[in-house]
């Protein structure tokens, strides 16, 4: 469907006499980039709103000078990239940018990939005509990972733009520099736009928007990625390497189910130690945004000396007598297939709690809807203009879902509905038309019913659903004010065409998971809303598709990065070492329903799972030889690993791996259970949720991730709790430090699960919410 | 022949003299190598050995230590006995030849009253003995070259045979004329012949020149060092030698140089007679030293000749000249 649309909406434009096709409503700059035509531009970011800070993208369109980042293409538009006037403007702008910009490129971290260097050369700036007294600007650290040197800053505002439009933190802004005022004579003596740009530049500098010296944000480092000069650098990377010394290894981030494309940048660790070390992680920031874990949690490799033959022999023995293999979702598709093969050959049982819950939910959904997988991917969520979220802690569970939610508000003049039991202060700030419901835990069905009520074509609904649709009652149940919401909703619905819903882990671990899955199927069948699901952990989708998981099992257990009688571990604390994700090749299935390749960035000298497979069952030569045997029945393709691409095209097309094939069949209408309001949880509630930037043991191992393992609570709640508490569940208890999360609201506390050794899943059993008793110790 | 009144020559005196000669000449031969290197260096405006001892004086000792301590290698296919004996022949003949040559004036050791003669053994056929011994020295290189199972050695020994044998003729014929004049074969008589009168070189210039030329060939010196001409035959007869065996060839060569110097001094250059205010012992040392220096000087200045040129010079130029010289000497002696 979408393809037909794009063909329909194509317009013809002419750039420098050559005719191109462009999508209607696109900015000239994006249209040119998609057609491989170069228009210089510094401040523009593809998926963010135009800033108009640099003005270098000035072009002539139909005889008028326009900013190509801000002017949309029209049918038959004639565009000239460079006219003498524009060239003079551009040159003047580059000269202005070079005024007082330090010339010590040699020490700058950006040297070699600096856009100021590039454009200064591109526009052949060989002399300087302008000057003004410089302002003293001191370098400082904004946070534990951000380092800002205002002396190098050209105030292109890409950092503030990306922080606001993509990340949603809006943690930094332009502020006054206190610089010397421009001499009025310049106004007459230099090109107009260059003067305007200079005037603004001379007055501004970037600073944390909370007015203090440090940022209050999720430390994602996306501002560092987009900075065209060396002003914003990761604190740990400052002055440690030059861009050209680093080897870029395209990979897939293994921390959450977003599966973002990243480059591990490596070089030998030092003069003494010539083993490759990851110095930083970079990304294609025009097309994908990383979170703090993706960017900073890269040094989780398992450094071991060599092959431990004794441990390997005992591992083989352990596998031969194993009854159960307990593993988690930080695993490649290939390894999942190996475990599945073991199950088929040796009859072991496979335990993976989060993937099992997701698998069950997917099965319910497939049975109810006939779709083999959820219908929407998250790129499409970003294209929608009304986005909803149910059952996921948007800020913590999946950064890409959060970025999508935020981006829809900022870029598509969108609206948003956020349903979650844990109050969040950040989400409502994403846009003016974001309505947030803090409902009782266990009332997720009500949220879905409300959405059905809001969007469904009532004629298509069965009676079992229809009878439950009492909008005002539902709103009240969900903790909202019916009148207020109805008024707000009318405003939200203005000019909206594409509707999307993101659902998360709360639903998979829900007592009524089957009913929820059916409701989602009903919603999709009866409305224009499409649904995307957030897999709980890194490769939960892949594991859910590949493995035939078991619910319970007893007997001799092998733990793979989990506890067990014999432990395989990529963390270095097991009985046999395994390679970590940055040390192995393979594919991951991410929430975009895409199978993406990842590569080894760091050397690994030990045994892999494939070596064990060779001993206990069958195995090809390499781990990646499994790739083409991934189950095609589940949508995988029989392609070789080496043929999988990993990059983006100029127009933003994701060219990574392949998309899972999905099928859709007609199914019988399903019956919906009645929503039982009394099932909501009361009392002290703990929520199984990781802090931002923490996803698993590997992110915890990385040295630039500081979020600790503790009880996260809103400031108000934390005050009542004290500094250290014992949390008692039905299944046991745990003692945790209390950590304040400024962006949490309400009484529910969050208990992280990123430490597999703490067995948090056991405590929560089959739910994400549990009633607990908390006692200060 | 008049009998000179001299103290009785005792066996002790002769032994002392023999030891003296052996020690001094060996030392001088060694020292000669140092001098040679220095002189050649100076003539090429170099410094020569400088590093061991003052101005490299102890280089000599260093070389000696090196030669003595170097591994003694005998090639697998060499005739081992002959190979081992050959250097001894060269050294021995060189020193035996010196037995009949007056090297220093005679003197008496005070207190013990032992008379040490100027000559270890003043045999009446002194010159013949010396020339004979030097000719016998040819067996050294000849056997060495043939014993070592090396083609360069063979060529070296072949060259030894032709060069030594040929130039033996010149030496003999050139010295025949002075012998005719003196009427004796004893070196002492030669010396005494020149006591009052002019040096023999004045009477016999041609013989002197021929003798010097032949002397270069006999001592295997440039420009006639074809036996061990490194550009053509590696090291000729000495190719396979190392250590002290090679050192004995070396000492032999330098001892021969001194012998030739002594013969030239005694036969042609006035012997150990006093000259003006200079005493005889100083004169003979000066004369020998000059001969030695001349040999080095020539080495620095002149190139090698080819073996065929060497033979041509011997048989077609020098030999006829020597014969003519003898004849003319005879005729003059008959007439005068």
């Amino acid at each position, binding site marked *: 469907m979408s393809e037909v649309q794009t063909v329909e909406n194509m317009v013809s434009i002419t750039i420098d006499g050559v005719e191109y096709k462009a999508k209607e409503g696109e900015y000239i700059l994006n249209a040119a980039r998609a057609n491989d035509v170069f228009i210089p531009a510094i401040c523009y970011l593809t998926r963010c709103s135009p800033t108009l800070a640099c003005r270098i993208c000035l072009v002539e369109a139909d005889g008028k000078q326009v900013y190509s980042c801000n002017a949309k293409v029209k049918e038959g538009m004639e565009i000239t990239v460079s006219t003498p006037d524009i060239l003079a403007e551009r040159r003047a702008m580059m000269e202005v940018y070079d005024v007082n910009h330090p010339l010590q490129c040699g020490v700058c971290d950006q040297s070699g990939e600096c856009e100021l260097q590039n454009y200064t050369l591109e526009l052949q700036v060989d002399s300087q005509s302008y000057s003004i007294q410089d302002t003293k600007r001191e370098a400082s650290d904004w946070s534990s990972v951000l380092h800002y040197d205002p002396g190098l800053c050209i105030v292109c505002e890409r950092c503030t733009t990306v922080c606001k439009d993509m990340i949603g933190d809006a943690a930094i802004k332009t502020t006054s520099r206190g610089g010397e005022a421009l001499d009025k004579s310049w106004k007459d003596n230099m090109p107009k736009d260059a003067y305007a740009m200079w005037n603004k530049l001379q007055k501004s500098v970037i600073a944390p928007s909370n007015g203090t010296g440090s940022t209050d944000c999720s430390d994602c480092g996306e501002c560092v990625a987009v900075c065209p000069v060396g002003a914003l650098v990761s604190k740990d990377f400052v002055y*440690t390497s030059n861009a050209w010394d680093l080897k870029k290894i395209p990979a897939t981030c293994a921390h959450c189910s977003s599966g973002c494309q990243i480059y591990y940048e490596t070089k030998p660790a030092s*003069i003494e130690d010539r083993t490759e070390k990851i110095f930083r992680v970079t990304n294609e920031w025009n097309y994908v945004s990383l979170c703090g874990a993706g960017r900073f949690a890269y040094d989780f490799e398992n450094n071991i000396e060599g092959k431990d033959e004794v441990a390997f022999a005992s591992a083989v023995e352990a596998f031969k007598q194993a009854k159960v293999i307990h593993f988690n979702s930080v695993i490649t598709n290939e390894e999942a297939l190996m475990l599945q093969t073991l199950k088929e050959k040796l009859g072991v049982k496979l335990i993976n709690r989060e993937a099992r819950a997701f698998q069950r939910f997917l099965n319910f959904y497939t049975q109810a809807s006939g779709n083999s997988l959820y219908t929407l991917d998250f790129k499409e969520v970003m294209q929608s203009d009304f986005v909803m979220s149910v059952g996921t802690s948007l800020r913590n569970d999946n950064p890409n879902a959060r970025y999508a939610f935020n981006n829809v508000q900022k870029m598509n003049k969108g609206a948003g509905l956020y349903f979650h039991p844990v109050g969040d202060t950040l989400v409502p700030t994403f846009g003016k038309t974001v309505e947030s419901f803090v409902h009782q835990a266990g009332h997720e069905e009500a949220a879905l019913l409300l959405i059905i009520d809001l969007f469904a074509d009532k004629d298509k609904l069965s009676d079992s659903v229809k009878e439950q649709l009492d909008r005002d009652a539902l709103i009240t149940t969900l903790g909202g004010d019916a009148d207020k919401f109805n008024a707000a909703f009318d405003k939200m619905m203005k000019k909206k065409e594409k509707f999307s819903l993101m659902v998360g882990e709360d639903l998979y671990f829900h007592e009524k998971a089957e009913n929820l899955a059916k409701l989602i199927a009903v919603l999709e069948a009866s409305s224009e809303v499409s649904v995307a699901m957030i897999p709980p952990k890194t490769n939960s989708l892949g594991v859910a598709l590949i493995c035939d998981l078991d619910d319970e099992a007893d007997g001799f257990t092998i733990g793979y990065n989990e506890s067990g009688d014999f432990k395989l571990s990529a963390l270095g604390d097991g009985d046999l070492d395994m390679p970590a994700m940055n040390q192995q090749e393979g594919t991951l299935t991410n929430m975009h329903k895409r199978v993406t390749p990842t590569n080894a960035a760091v050397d690994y000298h030990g045994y892999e799972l494939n070596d064990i497979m060779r001993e206990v069952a069958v195995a090809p030569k390499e781990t990646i030889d499994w790739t083409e045997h991934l189950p095609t029945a589940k949508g995988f393709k029989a392609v070789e690993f080496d043929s999988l691409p990993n990059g983006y095209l100029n127009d933003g097309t994701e060219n990574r791996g392949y998309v899972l094939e999905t099928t859709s069949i007609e199914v019988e209408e399903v019956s919906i259970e009645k929503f039982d309001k009394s099932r909501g949880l009361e009392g002290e509630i703990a929520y199984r949720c990781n802090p931002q930037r923490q996803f698993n043991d590997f992110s915890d191992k990385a040295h630039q991730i500081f979020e600790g393992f503790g009880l996260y609570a809103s400031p108000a709640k934390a005050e009542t709790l004290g500094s250290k508490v014992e949390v008692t569940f039905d299944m046991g208890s745990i003692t945790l430090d209390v950590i304040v999360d400024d962006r949490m609201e309400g009484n529910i506390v969050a208990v992280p699960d990123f430490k597999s050794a703490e067995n948090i899943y056991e405590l929560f059993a089959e739910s994400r919410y549990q009633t607990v008793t908390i006692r200060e110790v | 022949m008049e009998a000179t009144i001299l103290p009785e020559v005792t066996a002790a005196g002769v032994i002392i003299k023999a030891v003296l000669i052996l020690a001094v000449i060996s030392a001088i031969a060694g020292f000669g190598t140092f001098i040679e290197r220095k002189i050649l*260096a100076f003539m*090429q*405006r170099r410094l020569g050995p400088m590093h061991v001892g003052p101005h490299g004086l102890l280089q000599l000792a260093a070389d000696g230590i090196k030669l003595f301590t170097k591994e003694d290698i005998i090639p697998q296919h060499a005739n081992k006995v002959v190979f081992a004996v050959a250097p001894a022949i060269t050294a021995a003949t060189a020193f035996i030849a010196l037995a009949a040559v007056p090297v220093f004036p005679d003197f008496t050791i005070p207190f013990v009253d032992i008379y040490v003669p100027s000559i270890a053994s003043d045999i009446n056929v002194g010159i013949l003995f010396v020339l004979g011994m030097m000719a016998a020295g040819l067996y050294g290189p000849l056997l060495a070259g043939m014993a070592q199972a090396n083609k360069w050695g063979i060529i070296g020994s072949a060259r030894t045979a032709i060069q030594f044998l040929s130039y033996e003729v010149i030496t003999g014929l050139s010295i025949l004329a002075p012998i005719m004049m003196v009427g004796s074969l004893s070196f002492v008589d030669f010396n005494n012949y020149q006591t009052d009168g002019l040096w023999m070189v004045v009477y016999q210039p041609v013989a002197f020149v021929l003798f010097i030329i032949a002397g270069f060939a006999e001592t295997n010196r440039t420009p006639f060092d074809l036996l061990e001409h490194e550009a053509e035959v590696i090291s000729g007869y000495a190719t396979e030698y190392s250590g002290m065996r090679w050192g004995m060839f070396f000492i032999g060569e330098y001892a021969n140089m001194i012998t030739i110097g002594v013969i030239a001094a005694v036969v042609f250059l006035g012997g150990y007679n006093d000259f003006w205010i200079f005493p005889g012992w100083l004169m003979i040392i000066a004369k020998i030293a000059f001969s030695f220096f001349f040999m080095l000087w020539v080495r*620095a200045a002149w190139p090698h000749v080819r073996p065929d040129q060497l033979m041509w010079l011997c048989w077609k130029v020098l030999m006829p000249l020597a014969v003519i010289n003898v004849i003319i000497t005879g005729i003059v002696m008959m007439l005068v």
Partner: protein
Amino acid sequence: MSLEQFKNRNVGTQNYKKLDLEHSPTCGWCQFKQVVSRTFKPELFVGLWVTLREMGNALFRGKMHTTQYPFEKLPISPRYRAIHDMLRLLESGHYRCIGCGLCEKICISNCISMDTRYDENQRKEVSEYTINFGRCIFCGYCAEVCPELAIVHGPRYETASEQRASFSLFEDMLTPIDKLNLQQEYDGFGAISSNADENIKKTPLAY
């Protein structure tokens, strides 16, 4: 047009002097005459004289050529590319290297490596620097590319050592701080041209 200049492929300047070769004597008498003439013409003695004269020159007129090498050394051309030196700033004594890594990048035998870090004074500090002299081909690119004239080729051409590492660390190459006054500006590969000042475009300065 004459093709003469193209046909003459002898590119040397044509001032060879041919030897005045006589015809070889054919008869025995002629040969004898040649010997006599060569003997009595002073040719041989000229040779003797020349060597003697040079000995005199060497000994008494100070024309000895020998340089006693380990103790005396000949001055070396500034363009000679020997073991590298790392220079210091003359005023502050701080090393000039700013750790820009251009030498590391340009090195065609890939033998330079450096570690840099962010120091207490917010400057880029070169914590370690090394050249693998087992690989270095002394091409001089590092000296040419260096923007600070920090790495230059020094006069140390004696590269025999028990370990290659003996020359290769930053401290080995750096001018000793007590010898800062002896530090020479480098004239060789990569040095600034004598008319560099004229080629610089002046940047306006507001104060």
